């Protein structure tokens, strides 16, 4: 079981979301984050004085999947998040010890993402 954590542009989220839904990965979380990297900051001018802002807004996408699905999900993210410009973001993959579904108490890979029949409905 792995967790994929991607820092992406806001506008790339919607296409990634649609592709992951189609592939049967509906379970994910996002948060609005601010961070810095190689992307340059912006300068605000307020009544003649300057204020430079280095932390730029990004979307953090988190998605936990079975190990054999990691490449599929990462590929979907890379495909839609890449514009070729600095500021496209980064993807991290990390191991996860265990996963539980709270409603039923079951654990293991079957708690991740949609059941196959649900995924089939989503793609149909």
């Amino acid at each position, binding site marked *: 079981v792995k967790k994929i954590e991607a820092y992406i542009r*806001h*506008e790339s989220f919607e296409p990634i979301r649609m592709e992951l839904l189609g592939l049967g990965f509906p379970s994910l979380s996002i948060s609005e984050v*601010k961070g*810095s990297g*190689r*992307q*340059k*900051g*912006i*300068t*605000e*001018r*307020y009544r003649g004085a*300057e*204020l*430079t*802002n*280095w*932390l730029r*807004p990004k979307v953090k996408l988190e998605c936990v999947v079975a190990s054999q699905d990691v490449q599929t999900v990462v590929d979907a993210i890379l495909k839609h998040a890449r514009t070729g*410009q*600095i*500021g496209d973001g980064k993807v991290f993959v990390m191991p996860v010890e265990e996963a539980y579904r709270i409603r039923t108490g079951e654990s293991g890979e079957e708690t991740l993402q949609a059941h196959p029949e649900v995924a089939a409905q989503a793609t149909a």
Partner: protein
Amino acid sequence: MRRRTGVALLGAVLAYAVLPGVALADTKDAAAAGALPDSVAINSVWVLVAALLVIFMQAGFAFLEIGFSRAKNAGTVVAKILTNFSIAAIAYWAVGFAFAFGAGAIIGHDGFFLRDYGDPQQAFPIMGLSDATIESKWLFQFSFCAVSLAIVWGTTLERIKFAVYILYAIVFAAFIYPIASHWVFGGGWLQSNVGMQDFAGSTAVHLIGATGALAVLLQLGARRGKYGADGKPRAIPGHSMPLFGLGVLILWLGWFGFNPGSTLGAMDGRFTEVALVTMLAAAAGVLGAIAVARWKTGTIDIGMAGNGAIGALVAITAPSGYVEAWAAPIIGLIAGIIVPLGVYAIDRYIDDPVGALTAHGLCGVWGTLACGIFTSPGLAAYNAVGQAGLIYNGSFHQLGSQALGIVTVFAFVFTLSYATFYAIKKTVGLRVTAEEEDAGLDISEHGMYGYPEQFIPAPELIGYSPAPGMVPARETPRGATTKEVPV
């Protein structure tokens, strides 16, 4: 060379403006001799108070548009309203007022720079019904021009270049609005020869503004993300319904200057009747709009409640001096019903973030036509324009005059506006880039945010020096927003 000619022209204009005129001396001399009639003072006070109420409507437009914009586009509205209001004042003083209210069937020709017009009763014949000072009348009519101009821009929020506001404002306040409004209520041919009734400007102010809005919108296009891949419209919610509501209520208040002030005097007491008619129509408009919104969507939409008030106020603007009080709630209710239906229909094809095409356009048309139905014989005779409406005399004559006026004004304003925006599009351009639109017009057009705390993380807003190793701030190109450059 061009620059020197421009400076010389500006100098000539200023010299002409500061040369001693005769206008301001008129009332002063009369007052000194103890011969200023009381009616001049009383009428001037009312016209000036009405003008101030209409001027306050600029705050209404500002808050309405700010509320309907996303937070990243809130500040630019403030700069736009102030800039446009100021351009309109100078242009209307220089030529606009003379074109709009000077004598003449097609275009007025007295009172450029509000001077050397001689006897005001002859220079501005249509306003001779009141002896209020010409300065109070100027301020009142200028505030109308500024309202009409403000209506143009609500449709263009969140994607238009700031320069477009400036360029079109000059053409609009100096030529388009003055000429078209001259025909309708400045003593021009539609009023004098056709007998078109428009008491305070359903057509002359609101339809003109909405027509300019349509002309720019057709060339500007929708905001990014407004229409999905399937072509269906998506909601782009504005960031503050409370500010929107404040804007609506300020506009509503301002309308008590707009309609009752169009009596241009207080001596006959008519202005209080017009105020009553205005209030009743607006109330019915809100109720009509929320009822239709509830019926069509299952909820009482906050924006529709506000737009219902605006739509009804626009509709009652033309008939406010021509109809009896009983007709006002009917006219307002129908406008309130038009508002949601118009907004839903228009939203499927063109992106009008504030619903101005419906509230000012469709309701302006309805209000103008309503004169042809509800105008009472007594008030038509009292105002000495046109005749009674359909329900009184069974004749479609007045309705036909109203329709002719609407079509003429729409065609004139649309043609000139479309050409102006086309020229702007081919030279400086109408739209900001996609990157600037994503970043928001506050930062792209003005280099600052309307709500800094919302966009700049708190640790950076404290304002210590940049992190070590970062590029000094001055190397950031002006206007750079999402343009990425490696450090």
